[in-house]
């Protein structure tokens, strides 16, 4: 192509990928735009959380301080923890991954751009609920882990706890959306030739992080839903007097809560693993080892949660399993550290500003990790638990393991993201202020805890030896804040007035540095064929491929936004993805979901119901936009390759999305069964007065109908593939789906005692309700698929619209059979209960 042609090509692409101006910005779906919005909003929350921590430190500076009363203090520390964990840390890693993953992996966007836009709106609305409540003086005040019964209706009658449960669940919707998006993207949407072994480590880290979110968030969501139902309708899931158990909440919360710590740490470690090779001037040492370490962390971190519950009275040997696992998880972390060190030893390290921040990371995080091992020791934990030792430890881990790497990352990637050159001096000042301020706040705080200061107290008396420790922490806290202010000031000055950055200023080897600084909305003019993990170091031709249109999908000739889909393992291109353009639907759907949540918050359940129905309608309308209305032949993908379009292949991203979504759903379900069995086995006040009554007929009917529904979809897929009409199969599925949901609803109404009477009745009703909703949604999907078929979206070659709901129906049948088996079988099997 001639330079003139190229220029025109790029202009057309820019037009095609542009986000509309003005109000149209609300319709934005481009991953760079959405990613930056996540990042900016999370930083706003960081500032809010930081200001709250200053209030905490001001109050605790001297004994007997009158600055804040307990009502204000309890809201402030709860909001500080909640904001920092749920509204700052998680969204920030989400934003970074949304922004960077396509740039690292060689794609033009994520596979479901509208889903990430939807996630952003959920985050914004959910976070706003919490902020509004805070300014109205009714912020949550039971601590960021919201232990029942303190957070239950009896002891927190106000709206405060509802704000937490509803706001956070709303934000978690965005986390789930993110997780589904990222798993599907990392597996499917990369550039040609990027096999798993050539994927930059960041890709592995995010893949595992997203999978951990898939498994980690459902317990929290389940817990929040149950607690909110308990508060709203008095179903006693956690009420010991009525067969519930407050410890169930702790299990559900920490089953999420511990992996959460690694969900925050792994992406930060990912950034470290990207920066170190650049500054060591060589590829990472022990790539294999790091990948294994990430995978191991992903698993083992789910075996640690009881270390937050060492003092609740669980027998000693049970604690030891968790103690051992908590110590064992140090090994994958140590592997990563020594891989980084080895990389530096093998290379020729260049000291630089990001490296300085990485030194801060090393120093602080190692300390936090070691105090973590200390806390994993059961007897020590009996003393240190719930004291300021833990506060110190968690800040060493979070600020050291998360904030410092990201401060380094900010300096490292800013030239790419903004096109502005890096500066040194102010950043160094900020570093030393933050580093010294941090240690001056938290180092001796370990001691504060060991000399007996419990956490979460709004005031303390004189004479216990805590005075100067606290005063020093408060002074350190203000130095730390000044440091952060200096850091942000530096960034703002550079964004406003910095000089232009040269391309790839650090001479890095990974793909993102081949982009324009800042990158165009479509990232790559053409997608390169990769043969190396550090293409900019090893492959002379990548720049030509990307910039001169010699790579894949080099033009806009079909008028679509396109990117490559590849085989998940080998990286061989196997399809062309057509990306959707800007749309208001994500915003509308999220807003309607907001109506549902806000209605619940104020007890306006009719409004909630309307919101839920409208949101479902909007989601269906949204789903309607996907797909093609006619069959296409394979299309030219550049570099001599012809590829099918995504809606016409077997494992399109949509299929993967449904698989991952069902894993989320299945985890939710398994956690629910865990809760069900847990209450049977250990809750006080069992057995209930009455178990499920007879009801065999309805149960058998529901089971058979759900099987038939799944069979109906199967039939539809089969006949469609053979070129016949899928309508008979879909009709069967529609009908049996409705029958199943009605039979289940009938059971709830007739066979189960009133759910307010006992936790058994409550959890059984909830389980049956879950199944009923699933059966009902199967029916809706059948009707929807039939409509899609009528409008020409389905053909023998375009069968995704049938195969995706088939997965759902099969899942529904499976969970229905398991659930009904438990509900019907357990009472007769265990009789009087545990």
């Amino acid at each position: 192509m001639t330079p003139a042609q190229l220029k025109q090509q790029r202009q057309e692409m820019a037009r095609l990928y542009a986000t509309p101006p003005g109000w149209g910005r609300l319709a934005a779906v481009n991953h760079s735009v959405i990613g930056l919005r996540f990042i900016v909003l999370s930083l706003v929350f960081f500032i809010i959380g930081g200001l709250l921590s200053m209030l905490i430190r001001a109050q605790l500076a001297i004994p007997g301080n009158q600055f804040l009363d307990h009502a204000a203090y309890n809201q402030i520390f709860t909001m500080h923890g909640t904001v920092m964990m749920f509204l700052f840390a998680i969204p920030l890693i989400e934003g970074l991954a949304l922004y960077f993953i396509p740039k690292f992996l060689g794609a033009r966007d994520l596979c479901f751009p509208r889903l990430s836009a939807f996630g952003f709106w959920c985050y914004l609305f959910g976070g706003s609920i919490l902020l509004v409540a805070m300014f109205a003086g009714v912020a949550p005040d039971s601590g960021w882990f919201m232990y029942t019964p303190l957070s239950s209706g009896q002891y927190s009658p106000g709206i405060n706890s509802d704000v937490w449960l509803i706001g956070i669940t709303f934000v978690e919707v965005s986390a789930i959306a993110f997780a589904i998006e990222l798993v599907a993207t990392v597996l499917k949407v990369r550039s040609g030739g990027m096999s798993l072994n050539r994927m930059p480590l960041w890709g592995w880290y995010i893949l595992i992080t997203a999978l951990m979110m898939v498994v980690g968030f459902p317990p929290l969501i389940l817990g929040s839903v149950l607690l909110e139902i308990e508060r709203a309708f008095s179903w006693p899931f956690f009420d010991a007097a009525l067969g519930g158990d407050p410890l169930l909440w702790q299990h559900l919360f920490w089953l999420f809560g511990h992996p959460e710590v690694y969900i925050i740490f792994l992406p930060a470690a990912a950034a470290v693993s990207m920066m170190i090779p650049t500054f060591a001037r060589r590829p990472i040492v022990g790539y294999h080892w790091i990948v294994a370490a990430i995978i191991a962390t992903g698993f083992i971190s789910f075996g640690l949660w009881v270390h937050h519950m060492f003092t609740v009275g669980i027998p000693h040997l049970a604690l030891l399993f968790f103690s051992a696992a908590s110590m064992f998880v140090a090994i994958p972390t140590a592997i990563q550290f020594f891989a980084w060190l080895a990389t530096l030893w093998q290379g020729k390290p260049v000291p630089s500003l990001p490296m300085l921040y990485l030194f801060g990371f090393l120093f602080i995080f190692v300390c936090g990790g070691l105090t973590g091992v200390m806390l994993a020791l059961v007897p020590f934990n009996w003393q240190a638990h719930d004291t300021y030792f833990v506060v110190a430890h968690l800040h060493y881990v979070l600020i050291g393991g998360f904030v410092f790497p990201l401060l380094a990352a900010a300096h490292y990637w800013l030239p790419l993201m903004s096109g502005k050159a890096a500066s040194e001096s102010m950043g160094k000042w900020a570093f030393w202020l933050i580093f010294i301020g941090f240690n001056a706040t938290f180092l001796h705080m370990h001691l504060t805890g060991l000399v007996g200061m419990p956490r979460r107290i709004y005031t303390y008396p004189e004479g216990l030896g805590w005075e100067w420790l606290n005063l020093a922490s408060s002074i350190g806290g203000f130095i730390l804040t000044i440091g952060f202010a200096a850091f942000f000031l530096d960034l703002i000055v550079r964004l406003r007035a910095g000089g232009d950055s040269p391309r790839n200023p650090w001479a890095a080897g990974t793909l993102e540095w081949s982009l324009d600084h800042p990158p165009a909305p479509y990232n790559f003019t053409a997608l390169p064929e990769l043969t190396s993990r550090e293409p900019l170091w090893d492959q002379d031709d990548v720049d030509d491929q990307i910039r001169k249109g010699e790579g894949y999908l080099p033009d806009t000739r079909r008028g679509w936004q396109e990117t490559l889909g590849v085989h998940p393992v080998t990286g061989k291109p196997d399809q062309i993805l057509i990306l959707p353009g800007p749309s208001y639907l994500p915003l509308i759907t999220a807003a309607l979901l907001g109506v549902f949540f806000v209605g619940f918050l104020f007890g306006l359940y009719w409004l909630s119901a309307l919101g839920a129905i409208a949101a479902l309608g909007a989601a269906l309308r949204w789903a309607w936009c996907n797909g093609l209305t006619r069959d296409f032949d394979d299309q030219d993908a550049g570099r001599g390759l012809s590829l099918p379009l995504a809606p016409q292949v077997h494992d399109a991203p949509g299929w993967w999305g449904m698989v991952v979504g069902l894993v989320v759903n299945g985890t939710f379900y398994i956690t629910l069964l865990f809760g069900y069995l847990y209450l049977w086995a250990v809750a006080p006040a069992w057995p209930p007065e009455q178990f499920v009554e007879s009801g065999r007929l309805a149960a058998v009917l529901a089971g058979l109908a759900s099987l038939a529904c799944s069979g109906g979809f199967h039939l539809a897929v089969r006949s469609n593939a053979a070129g016949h009409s899928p309508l008979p199969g879909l009709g069967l599925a529609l009908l049996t789906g409705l029958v199943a949901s009605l039979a289940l609803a009938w059971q709830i109404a007739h066979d189960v005692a009133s759910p307010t009477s006992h936790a058994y009745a409550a959890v059984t009703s909830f389980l049956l309700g879950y199944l009923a909703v699933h059966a009902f949604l199967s029916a809706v999907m059948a009707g929807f698929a039939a409509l899609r078929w009528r409008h020409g979206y389905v053909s023998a070659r375009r069968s995704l619209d049938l195969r995706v709901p088939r997965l759902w129906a099969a899942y529904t049948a499976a969970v229905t059979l398991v659930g009904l088996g438990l509900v019907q079988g357990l009472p007769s099997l265990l009789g009087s209960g545990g």
Partner: protein
Amino acid sequence: MALLVILTASACQGPVSALDPAGQGAADIAWITWVMIAGTLFFMALMTGLWLHAVYRRSDRPLKLSNTTVLVGGGLVLPLVVITLLLVYGIRSGHSMLPIGAPDLEIRVTAYQWFWEFEYSDDQGRSLTLVDELHLPLGQRIDFHIDTADVIHSFWIPALGGKMDAIPGRTNTLRLVPTRAGQFGGQCAEFCGARHAHMHFAVTVHEPEDFQRWLDTAFEDAP
């Protein structure tokens, strides 16, 4: 340096300090705490030193240490050895603090928002309830049976040993063995609402004879 040591040492003193132990469990834990703090400092110095050497070393040449050695040595062997030793010690020490074998004295503890009730009773059917005030005999094995009337609290006397939560619907047992007479402080360690910060109680450890004398008079005076 000496000043720092003195300063830290004096900072560890106090009526509610876990590092100024007056009980068997607390003494054990204080000892392992110091060991672990020393270990933490050692490993921090090690890792910091390695990093500084790796980044700021003079020579440009790669280190003559094979990568596998570094990864196996630092990533696997070193942590595995340390955590194995630690875990074995922890198991033994934790086990020794459990309420195994008959106690010499049993006290019922009930937590309320926001105070503590301690109930003593003897085999003659006499009983006595104190609020926010606890008297204990020196050198005896004392079992506390802890429960709550409302939300979760946590019973903690740092100078004597670890803490134990008070959970609705259950009764947890904590064993403490005081080894030094004197005045100590206890407090609620699990956040329990508005006045959590004020949920302290006073602990007095008496010589056994003094304790018996105190108990007898207290039973007499009890309504």
